[in-house]
């Protein structure tokens, strides 16, 4: 009898625990965050949360620091995303061919993206060290002037983007290589008959055919780059000044350094909306391009 009941409802018995878990851990926090974004609250026992309506939002939208963090986020995201895509596709085209030690090379290429981001942030902190770091040492070898890297207001975001590019270009590569391995052979054969050059084959056959895969890789990276936290926290913590303070870092500072939970929550709602818009935009582009 019990078996019969279980068999009839197995669909729900199997999914309910996972769904309940996700609702408790995720849906509740989201609603809670939206709610406290309308309150002023500093998490102290003395002053209870106070309803302030849209004040947190208005204050944020009028603050320079907020717009600075929007700018930093977009700058970092666009820079990392563009370089990772171009470099990732280019490297995939090289690594995809047959050469000696291909399997070992592919395995080594995997290591940056599994390495612990915080630890890698600290390794790059040493590499970027102005006096003893490897980055300036190399610049000197090639006859260039040393840079301040993370210590300079104008160089901090590009320096951080280099870390992200180092860690995640292999991921773009991996996805593009998977796409390359599924390409049909016929178009290449007929192009060969027509006497097409290697360059023409790349531009007119390979790239259009792997375009859907490239877009998938970009979507994934976009969502993650926007949310980058670990390497920035480990290296600059948003500095110098607030030059590398992205939305994610600013939210953390507001919430857990200044304990302004209301403001932090309204910032989160804005941040989440931005991510949602970007995601929907990417999905729309993907559809438009017939991926």
């Amino acid at each position, binding site marked *: 009898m019990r078996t019969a009941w279980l068999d009839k409802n197995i669909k729900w018995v199997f999914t309910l625990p996972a769904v309940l878990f996700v609702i408790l851990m995720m849906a509740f926090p989201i609603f809670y965050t939206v709610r406290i974004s309308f309150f002023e609250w500093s998490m102290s026992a003395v002053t209870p949360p106070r309803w302030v309506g849209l004040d947190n939002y208005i204050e944020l939208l009028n603050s320079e620091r907020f717009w600075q963090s929007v700018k930093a986020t977009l700058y970092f995201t666009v820079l990392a995303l563009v370089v990772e895509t171009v470099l990732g596709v280019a490297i995939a085209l090289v690594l995809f061919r047959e050469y000696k030690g291909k399997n070992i090379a592919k395995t080594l290429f995997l290591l940056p993206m599994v390495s*612990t981001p915080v*630890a890698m942030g600290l390794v790059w902190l040493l590499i970027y060290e102005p006096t003893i770091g490897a980055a300036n040492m190399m610049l000197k070898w090639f006859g260039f002037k040393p840079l301040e890297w993370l210590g300079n207001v104008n160089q901090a975001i590009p320096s951080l983007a280099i870390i992200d590019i180092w860690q995640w270009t292999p991921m773009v590569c991996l996805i593009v290589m998977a796409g390359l391995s599924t390409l049909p052979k016929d178009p290449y054969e007929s192009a060969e008959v027509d006497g097409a050059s290697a360059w023409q084959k790349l531009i007119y056959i390979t790239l259009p055919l792997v375009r859907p895969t490239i877009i998938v890789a970009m979507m994934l990276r976009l969502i993650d780059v926007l949310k980058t936290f670990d390497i920035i926290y480990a290296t600059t913590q948003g500095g110098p000044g607030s030059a590398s303070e992205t939305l994610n870092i600013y939210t953390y500072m507001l919430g857990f350094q200044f304990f302004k939970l209301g403001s932090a929550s309204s910032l989160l709602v804005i941040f989440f909306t931005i991510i949602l818009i970007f995601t929907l935009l990417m999905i729309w582009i993907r559809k438009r391009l017939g991926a």
Partner: protein
Amino acid sequence: MKQKSKAALLSTSAWLIILIFSFPLLWMVLASFKTQAQIMSTDNLLIFKPTLKNYSAVFEQYNFMKYIGNSAVVALGSTLGSLLLGLPAAYAIARYKLQGLALTILVARIIPAITFLIPWFILFSGLKLVDTFTALILTHMLVGLPFIIWIMIPFFESLPQEIEEAALIDGCSKFKVFLRIVLPISGPGVITSSLMSIIFSWNNFLFSIILAGEKTKTLPVAIFNFISYSEVNWGGIMAAACIITLPIILIALVAQRYVVSGLAAGALKG
């Protein structure tokens, strides 16, 4: 002749790319065997007398064994929990085509994790669960569970249904079919998704800085013990970075095939 030089050029450029990308890890390993004075000087970059002092300091002064244990408990605990909830759910989603449900769970991938952090902090503070493994395991499960569900849905979909149907006709209950037939042939999928869950939990930093305390501090947080205001102990940090990275690099090297397919599956669903 032309063919040969082209092949040589290809393999040289391939290995050059790999060398450039391996450089930071190589630098980390080298610096972990140097004294502070050797790190501060630009002579003898590659050839020097290695010291193990950084490593012994990491274990003796900074008590890293405890943090390794903490990270392992959280990574394994959250992976087991995610498997327990995720495997049946993924199976039901695959067999009964519950697309909407799958999508809901995938949302966890898009939302910035920091969104959950303020309410969690308030909630876990109220329940007196800050600085307990329960809080860390539960929160890390929110990262592991979607991964396990994503990787397992296509895996379960690709299993032949005939065996399951035959067992049902023989009077086996649906629950037993899952337990006795589906799970035993799902080894590769379970390995792939478990590895992903372990790697992501091991690397997680954000949840632990807020929800871990002295008792439950995990490796990515513990590494900050090396940064004091007066001087940065570079050798110690590099040794600690090596120790944190080594286990997952070993996993990635040994189970390369699974890690690649796991990362690719996670990517394509995202």
